[in-house]
């Protein structure tokens, strides 16, 4: 009998995901109350998440790198296995009254969260900070398990958030995606998937926007010239903060596209959970 090692490794990634999920559930908890769940997403079920990352990648650099890596490996028929990690962090049952959430007591936090809970760009909130720590510890253990098995992986807020928007693992407020593989050195770091997909000018423009002081000329005058070319003194330019309705409109357009994609797949995702009951474990929250 002969096996293709590449094929066997691709199949093995599901077992790796199971191992990582075990580590996720085994991870030590500070509170003992944090409800968590996980799901393994493979093959064609990855596509809705990748499709949602597409529009987002046009306005967000780190999402672009993740999107391109997902898509290129998917298109090549060698996608990662995605371990989706989730937790509900929006109530406190402990009564520790530490103040980390911004309220004097857990009782006040719970009352505020019940009335004002909402969704940020990635996750829901407000959150109990000790549960946030529990979730971080558990996600770290999942990633550490993959690292110990020598499978390239990367903790991702974006793929997790997209899965959450699609309706995966309902009843949870925070989601992390952990792509596992495909096997190889440096899939999710120093990404070969990005070769030929951006220019030096784009990279410099990114640095120019993110770290403008790095390009500042003499600041003593109070309004330094910006070194925006090799002969920067010939075209004097200055930094300025401007409101950009165009940029915000683009964000709005992207969010609309993502919402539409989510709506396309959400009923199918919801059917996966139609028989699942969300655990009602908030009965003993501090009121």
């Amino acid at each position, binding site marked *: 009998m002969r096996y293709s090692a590449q094929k066997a490794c691709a199949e093995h990634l599901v077992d790796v995901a199971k191992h990582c999920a075990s580590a996720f559930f085994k*991870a030590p908890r500070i509170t003992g109350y944090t409800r968590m769940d996980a799901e393994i997403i493979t093959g064609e079920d990855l596509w809705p998440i990748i499709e949602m990352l597409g529009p987002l990648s046009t306005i967000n650099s780190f999402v672009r790198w993740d999107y391109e890596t997902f898509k290129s490996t998917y298109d090549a028929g060698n996608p990662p296995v995605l371990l989706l990690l989730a937790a509900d962090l929006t109530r406190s049952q402990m009564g520790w009254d530490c103040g980390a959430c911004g309220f004097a007591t857990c009782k006040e936090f719970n009352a505020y969260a019940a009335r004002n809970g909402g969704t*940020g760009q990635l996750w829901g909130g407000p*959150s109990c900070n000790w549960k946030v720590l529990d979730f971080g510890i558990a996600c*770290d253990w999942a990633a550490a398990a993959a690292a110990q098995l020598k499978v390239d992986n990367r903790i991702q807020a974006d793929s997790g958030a997209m899965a959450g928007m699609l309706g995966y693992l309902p009843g949870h407020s925070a989601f992390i995606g952990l792509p596992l593989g495909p096997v190889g050195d440096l899939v999710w770091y120093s990404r070969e998937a990005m070769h030929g997909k951006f220019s030096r000018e784009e990279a410099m423009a990114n640095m120019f926007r993110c770290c403008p002081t790095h390009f500042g000329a003499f600041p003593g005058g109070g309004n330094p010239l910006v070194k925006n070319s090799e002969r920067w003194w010939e075209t004097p330019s200055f930094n300025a903060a401007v409101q950009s309705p165009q940029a915000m409109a683009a964000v709005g357009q992207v969010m609309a596209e993502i919402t539409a994609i989510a709506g396309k797949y959400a009923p199918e995702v919801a059917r996966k959970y139609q028989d699942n009951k969300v655990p009602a474990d908030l009965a003993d929250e501090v009121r």
Partner: protein
Amino acid sequence: MDKYSPFTGREHYHEWPPYSPSDLRRKEAVVQTARQMLIGALTAPMAGGVSQIEGQLLYGKDELEALARKMEAFAYENDRTEEIYKYEAVMVRDSDAVLLLGDYRCLETPLDVGCGLCGGRPDCSFFYERHPNRFGMVDTTDRRSDTPIRGPLCGARVNDLGYAVGSALWLASSLFVDARPFMSVGMAGKALGFCPDSEIIVGIIVAGKAKNPCVDIFPDYHLFNMEKVVDVSRKQFITARIVPSYDYRKWRPQNKVEEE
């Protein structure tokens, strides 16, 4: 002479009695693990790969006792946490080292990504509306607070602290050194001024003993633990010993059968 030619030695290890030379060698090995755990914490995955973790390592009887006493003081400030603080103070005394890990960016330099963890909003308004700041630079100099922690904190940073704690724990677990994370230990460490730049601290109890000091805890553990049992045994046995007194050089008590 070759500088390594006298390289030889004998090291005896024994966890009993506590703080004996043989036990101190063992403790030193655990402390070395705790130092490695700190490196694990620093290399943990974090948003943007930005450094945000500070650590403090405590070991030795005096340091651990001071920490345990601060925890016992906190036991009487909140009925809900009284037992937690009392029991976990015992665990600190029973440990070999405590590693405190704090996040020094969760209050002063948030991630500013609008993740939603702190307030469930798609911006960071929940955080910035509750802390004095100028152009988003948070003024943390007013350290007065009605609560132990000046919240709200940046949830993304706190989440990253979780990853740091997780990696530290993973490393300990891989070496079969017992380690568990605690709110109470972190709060006491914060009150004592450790990890001074961090608004939230997690305390990790680290031990390399036959029995993990942090699990399988007896009810009223602050009264029924190894240290107490040993001390009460000393009290009981000494009294029990002196009452049936005799001169062992001249006589020994006989079984009744022998006397007949």
